[in-house]
């Protein structure tokens, strides 16, 4: 009888965190188990211990080169609590919101134009050389120009609120360290109409593309799952910066709602598995088998009762009409969801720019020190939880982070196993189709490991099969991504 074998797939990424897929075949070459390994943040959680609380919102930005602002704000929110501040001065909260909308906008635009636009313009079957943003700009200079201008707008908002485009210092425990000067505000107002029109155009593009490629849904994955995000406490509206937690099942039924996020651990359990640094959260009352859930733009479209900006809300109604109001389970619809959020961000940014509170000078509140603080935010990729304990000497003694990719961990692993069972079992050799499908399955969840390499088209994917003795018997690498 043949020995069990191990297949290893290693996507090589340039920056932070990288993933590896190992597929365990049994003696009959059937898939026993498939695992996605992601180098995760455990080291970071240790590093942060012994640091002073005021440093934390700046230090945690180093977790991710793509969405540092999300970590910055989630940590600042947790430290607000620790500093005894339950309500920020209006200027501080609005400056932070402005920063966040700028960040979500630039992240979504980057994702959309790098990952979706090549497919939109050239189709899924286009040769690898065509599937990148440079070809998009060549083919459609106007679209390329807009992509760059929209991204820059978001980055400029970040710079105006945090001091730098990347790794700034704006949010401090209890508030913010700057307001928005009138001249800066006017500079943004001068182009906000363009941003709105372009966001609407991009939304139309994403919508049309999703509806047109409906037939691909089966191939690219329609994964019924539970969904979780924060929503505005009072009315369930989409709120990317603050709210209470809501989880729905794949039919739209409520699992929990209005959950104060400081009690997240009452509803979410973080499962630990010996082979992975990354935890596997699930909804406690549903158990580990049925309790896994997804977070992200599409999850938010599913959980939000409505959107409090008119254009984005109309777009949400339009999206919901496709599934007659039920949660949308189609992975492809994530592009659509992202563009709805970009429009929402533009509308929110416009409202904020017209708000005189942004020129206020009351920037920071103080309170009575507490020992524990939790900050939750909806990052571009989904729900993000920062949890700290700080001792009487102001030093961090405990840190727990649940990032979007961790929330989606179980879903990703299941998707990989699905693909593996379908395409690998019984095979002797690795085919290009296997590589493509595994990569697509992972990327459907937009994990941060790939967010670091947005031009995933260039991400080499390495697959190796070793026999029981550890000898390499097959190896395959592809340099172009699929989907």
């Amino acid at each position, binding site marked *: 009888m043949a020995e069990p074998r191990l297949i290893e797939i290693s996507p090589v990424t340039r920056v932070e965190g990288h993933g590896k897929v190992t597929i365990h075949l049994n003696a009959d070459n059937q898939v026993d188990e498939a695992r996605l390994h992601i180098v995760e943040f455990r080291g970071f959680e240790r590093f942060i211990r012994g*640091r*002073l609380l005021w440093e934390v*919102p*700046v*230090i945690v930005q180093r977790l991710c080169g793509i969405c540092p602002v999300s970590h910055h704000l989630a940590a600042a929110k947790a430290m607000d609590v620790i500093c005894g501040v339950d309500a920020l001065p209006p200027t501080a909260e609005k400056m932070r919101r402005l920063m966040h909308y700028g960040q979500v906008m630039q992240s979504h635009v980057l994702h959309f134009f790098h990952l979706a636009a090549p497919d939109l313009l050239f189709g899924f079957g286009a040769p690898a050389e065509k599937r990148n943003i440079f070809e998009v700009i060549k083919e459609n200079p106007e679209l390329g120009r807009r992509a760059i201008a929209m991204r820059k707008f978001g980055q400029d908002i970040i710079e105006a609120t*945090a*001091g730098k485009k990347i790794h700034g210092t704006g949010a401090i425990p209890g508030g913010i*360290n700057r307001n928005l000067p009138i001249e800066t505000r006017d500079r943004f107002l001068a182009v906000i109409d363009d941003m709105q029109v372009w966001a609407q155009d991009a939304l139309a593009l994403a919508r049309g593309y999703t509806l047109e490629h409906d037939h691909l849904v089966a191939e690219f994955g329609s994964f019924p799952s539970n969904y979780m995000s924060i929503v505005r406490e009072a009315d369930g509206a989409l709120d990317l910066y603050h709210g209470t937690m809501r989880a729905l099942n794949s039919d739209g039924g409520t699992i929990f709602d209005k959950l104060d996020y400081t009690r997240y651990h009452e509803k979410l359990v973080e499962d630990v598995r010996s082979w992975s640094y990354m935890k596997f959260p699930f909804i406690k009352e549903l158990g580990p088998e049925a309790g896994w859930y997804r977070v992200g733009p599409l999850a938010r479209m599913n959980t939000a009762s409505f959107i409090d900006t008119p254009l984005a809300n109309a777009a949400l109604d339009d999206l919901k009409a496709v599934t007659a109001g039920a949660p949308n389970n189609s992975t492809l619809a994530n592009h659509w969801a992202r563009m709805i959020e970009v429009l929402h961000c533009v509308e929110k940014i416009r409202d904020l720019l017209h708000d005189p509170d942004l020129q206020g000078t009351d920037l920071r509140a103080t309170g009575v020190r507490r020992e524990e603080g939790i900050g939750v935010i909806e990052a571009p990729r989904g729900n993000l939880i920062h949890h700290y304990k700080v001792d009487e000497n102001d030093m961090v003694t405990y840190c727990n982070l649940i990032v979007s990719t961790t929330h989606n961990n179980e879903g990703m692993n299941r998707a990989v196993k699905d693909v593996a069972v379908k395409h690998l079992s019984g095979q002797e050799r690795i085919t290009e189709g296997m590589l493509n499908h595994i990569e697509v399955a992972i990327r459907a969840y937009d994990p941060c490991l790939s967010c670091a390499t947005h031009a995933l088209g260039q991400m080499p994917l390495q697959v190796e099969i070793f026999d029981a003795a550890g000898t390499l018997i097959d190896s395959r690498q592809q340099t172009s991504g699929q989907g």
Partner: protein
Amino acid sequence: MSDPDFTFTIDGTTIPAKPGQTIMEAADAAGVYIPRLCDHEGLRHQGGCRVCTVKAGGRSVAACTQPAAPKLVVENETDHINKLRRDLVEMLFHEGNHLCPICEASGNCELQAMAYRLDMTGPTKFPYLEPCRAVDASHPDIALDTNRCISCSRCIRASQDVDHKGVFGYVGRGIHRRVAVNGSDLAHTDADITDHAISADVCPVGCIIRKGVGFATPIGEREFDHGLIGSDIEGKRRE
């Protein structure tokens, strides 16, 4: 009757001086900047960091302690001297553990500012020692991250000479010599947030930390956001 005033030159510029002034004091008054890290206004001169090394009459001397003399010819901003200074600053970076992007002193830090002024652009030839000392946060208002200490002794002099306390002192010898407090930790000293030694401008780096401040100063308004270190002194010259 006191000795008369005199002049000398730094890099060809005539500098007026009074008897008893150091080269650096006279240069400062004349708007000529000589880089320095351990010397600090209001504290006794020490000549410890050697970043202020100049050539006076062909000899390498510390400008902060060397008295000016009539007709002395001083070289300050030559390529050779600035390279020596850069080596010294590089060694300070390598001796400590400096993660500027996450350090609240960033933008206000004299070591970082000196590195910019001297064109230190990246990792250097020296090995990193990467100390990993625990932060002393025992005091309610003050913390110490000695991984960033450059042993300039400014806190020691400020505590002894201005505060008349002796909160800080050196322990160890040679390469192991470093700054420590005169108690088991900061909480067990008589350090107080109102001490001169603890004030914002005494420690040139992010080693002595005043709790609660953090990143309250926005990027753009920090001390060195608007000009190189020394540009305030150089500005006097143009006035």
